[in-house]
């Protein structure tokens, strides 16, 4: 449900940057989305068609670059992908990990004409 305000936010950021570049049309938005960001790309896509209507981004394609979650054990420094059943370090069983990837949720770039 929170994807509606989020999609409006994406549109606003894109329009601001396109305006600064004096662009006529936005053809694509390149969004990076981490596995831990709890955002749903299908849902953003759904709202996009509604919020972007009648703007210069109306026909833009949304490209999502997904980033898998990566933790680093702070005991042995092993890097691993957590699962929904196991979060402890698979190498040493240590707890206390740092998230090094997977929380991203940003608009990386836009393609304009």
């Amino acid at each position: 449900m929170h994807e509606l305000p989020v999609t409006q936010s994406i549109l606003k950021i894109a329009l601001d940057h396109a305006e600064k570049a004096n662009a006529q049309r936005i053809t694509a938005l390149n969004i990076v989305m981490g596995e831990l960001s709890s955002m749903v790309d299908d849902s953003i896509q759904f709202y996009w068609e509604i919020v972007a209507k009648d703007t210069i981004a109306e026909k833009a394609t949304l490209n999502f670059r997904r980033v898998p979650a990566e933790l680093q054990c702070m005991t042995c420094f092993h890097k691993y992908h957590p699962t929904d059943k196991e979060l402890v370090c698979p190498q040493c069983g240590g707890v206390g990990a740092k998230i090094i990837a997977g929380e991203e949720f940003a608009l990386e770039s836009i393609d304009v004409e």
Partner: protein
Amino acid sequence: MPTNIPVVENILNANDRLALENRTRIDAAGVFSINILASPGAGKTSLIEQTLPLLKGRLRVATIDGDIATSIDADRAAAAGAGAAIQINTGGDCHLDAVMLRGALEQLDLTQFDLLIVENVGNLVCPANFKLGTHKTVLVASVPEGDDKPYKYPGTYRGVDALVINKIDLLPYVNFRMDYFQQGVQVLNPGVTTFPLSCRTGEGLDIWVEWLVQNAKK
């Protein structure tokens, strides 16, 4: 031929900026504020209900309750002794955000209070993404929910400053492995302050209340 323009802007920036404004406003009034997250039924409102009488004469408390609909929670907080109880109905939204909190803060004279308790919408996914501007985020977990929740909702468990484990009086009756639960918590949030308690029996509430008082007096 399209040109690529680098943007690299965090999509939730607008909310984060407003959260910062809320924080400035709360700080200016010298109030300590917490944002309570939990799944529905974990005991957010019960915790507030049990906490308020114990704070009587020690802290002046205002509450802001977020729900999709109804004012049941704000009514319960007011009945339990909150100096002010504001209800935010999100009208379907699954979380509170900084704009909604700003609207609620405008209805409060913060200078009349020492502690502001914000009760978020019952949900373990979305509220974690939307900062409000409060000082601490407190997660209320509860024993009957199961011991796997830190594993299923890492985004929420990793971002909290304190963890209440409610309904510990039910430990003998349900299959809840405290060590497995704690292990999941410790991986993502090592050393997080934890308060095992029971809103029903009152066990452990004194330590939680003391934590609130100490923080509010800082």
